[in-house]
């Protein structure tokens, strides 16, 4: 991942935007509180909650024992009682330990017996940081297949802040996947006023006529970089940033593909069974007639995320993959 440097205007980093959203929501709504490992005195592994303990006290910035299942379960209980917990996974990878609580308790409680679970789980995810198989995972594909959960994955400081606020205000369990690679690599000037980015709305990041590229998270920046290169070669790439994965904004996807008739789906999660598969399937199901070529998926191979630099570079999608894919489709 060489990209993400394109958006270097403004002061607020992606990670700061997350901190701001938490801070503002905690000030606005006293029901909002935080739980996680080392989020108090230490301010969190990525310093998202630095200074929060002093400001909000130890019961709203609650250091937990090392027990993801336990504290996600506790957050579910607090949420059902009307609080608005925001839980931090130290790394998204450890969400596997809380899988049962998320999929069987949080996701199903409302459907089964009508209990709302307004819970946010923040999960720093993704590769490009030499984390290896246990500190680079993209777990969103697992949860995409669990009815009852909403899933968010912002690509910019603006969206990071606005989507986190929307997630906190949503009455359902929301998994908020924040990309570690973007934390301090992108900056923006954010509005002074309170704003949200509504859940369920994708954004066309760059309009284009020839090929639609649908993506989310850190890959958005790769796509925009590729779009520049393709532009020089006369290919006009449209880049759609999903922002929310569940509920999926089918309309924006379909509108784009109806226009271009060519679709690429790009993600950092493993290819097989990834979200790209669902989007591809939706497109053939609902927009078959508008397709003028195969739907390409660009995604890592079906392996864990390897540690060593040449391996991780091989594993992660590259700008050149996008350029090649778009050229192939454009020529189809």
């Amino acid at each position, binding site marked *: 991942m060489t990209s993400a440097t394109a958006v270097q205007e403004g002061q607020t980093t992606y990670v700061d935007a997350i901190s701001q959203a938490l801070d503002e929501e905690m000030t606005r709504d006293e029901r909002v509180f935080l739980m996680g490992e080392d989020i108090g005195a230490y301010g969190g592994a990525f310093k998202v909650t630095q200074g929060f303990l002093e400001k909000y006290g130890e019961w709203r910035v609650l250091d937990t024992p090392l027990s993801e299942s336990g504290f996600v379960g506790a957050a579910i209980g607090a949420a*059902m*009682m009307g609080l608005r917990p925001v839980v931090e996974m130290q790394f998204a990878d450890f969400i596997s330990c809380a899988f049962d609580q998320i999929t069987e*308790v949080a996701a199903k409680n*409302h459907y089964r017996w009508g209990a*709302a679970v307004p819970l946010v789980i923040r999960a720093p995810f993704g590769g490009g940081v030499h984390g290896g198989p246990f500190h680079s995972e993209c777990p969103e594909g697992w949860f995409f297949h669990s009815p009852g959960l909403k899933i968010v994955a912002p690509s910019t400081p603006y969206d990071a802040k606005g989507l986190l606020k929307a997630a906190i205000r949503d*009455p359902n369990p929301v998994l908020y996947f924040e990309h570690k690679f973007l934390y301090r690599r992108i900056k923006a000037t954010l509005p002074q006023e309170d704003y949200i980015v509504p859940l369920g709305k994708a954004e066309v990041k760059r309009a284009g006529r020839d090929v639609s590229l649908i993506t989310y998270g850190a890959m958005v920046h790769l796509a925009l970089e590729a779009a520049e290169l393709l532009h020089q070669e006369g290919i006009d790439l449209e880049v759609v940033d999903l922002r929310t994965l569940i509920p999926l904004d089918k309309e924006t996807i379909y509108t784009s593909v109806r226009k271009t008739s060519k679709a690429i789906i790009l993600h950092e999660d493993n290819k097989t069974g990834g979200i790209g598969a669902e989007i591809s399937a939706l497109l053939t199901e609902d927009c078959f007639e508008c397709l003028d070529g195969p739907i390409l998926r660009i995604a890592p191979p079906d392996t864990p995320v390897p540690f060593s630099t040449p391996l991780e570079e091989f594993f992660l999608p590259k700008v050149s993959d996008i350029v090649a894919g778009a050229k192939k489709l454009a020529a189809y």
Partner: protein
Amino acid sequence: MNQAPVAQDIKRSDLLEMYYYLRLTRSVEDRITALYRQGRIVGGVYTSHGMEAIAVGYASALNPEDVIAPFHRDMGAFLIRGFSPGEIISQYLGKQAGPTKGKDGNVHMGDLKRGVIGFVSHLADNMPVAAGAALAFKIRGESRVAFAGTGDGGTSRGDFHEAMNFAAVRKLPVVYFCTNNQYAYSTPVRYQMAIADVVERAKAYGMPGEIVDGNDVAAVYLASKRAIAKARSGGGPTFLEFKTMRMHGHSEHDAATYVPRALLEQWKAKDPIVRAERLLAQLGYGDESYFHEVGERAKKEVEAGTAFAEQSPLPEGPETLVGVFATENEVLP
């Protein structure tokens, strides 16, 4: 059974009400079992037969604003929280009038408005959830308590450990219990744990624990009262081991041939309803004719509930699609 219950400490009206709920629990479950035998209930039926004193005792000890995350054999807790026999039997029959509107079956019911957290099959999953409810009470400075439990089998799960530990570290206002009924499905306690009493588990968390005669409703009530009072006053969590015996099969399809008959005979003598009657008679609070009358009243309520449930409509197919997500006005204030 280290604390001799002093039943005199319990108000006469409270004891009589508990007796009524013991009978009502037995009646509801007997009726459900009969429906099951008639093939009218599909799916599992897990009863509290012979263990009714536990849910009746602890649920009677709580205040209405307290929250319960019941164990899967706690029918009494539902009844005390106002789930009517009609609603409950509707639930078992998959009718729309059940608390889950047919979305889920049997004991998998709950209702936040009545302070009952819906049971999750995955045993012990609601243990951390109850800690979280207690955490909410603590954060908001409310003097409410959460009460939650699992079986002897359920204590082997990681979520039991994570919940007990978290509750103890943060001194949360929660009372945890284990219904030790000697078996987890077919698995005897000796294959479940290498300790003599489940209460020893509490030591790992620095949590006080107590063994309670689970077939004595007064003992359950008093031990629960103490633990609840302690939690309510900021004294932190307690772990109660209710000793009892599963008198039916794991679920009604299970003949439980793996349980020695002698053991069942031995425990039959300790039936919680018989025990309660003996106590009430000793205290001069009731006699045979009173017991009979209460039993009849319970049965009548159950028959009325059964009739209600039977004539209630099933949900319509498309309701399947309703309710995956909550709306803002459903969040508890």
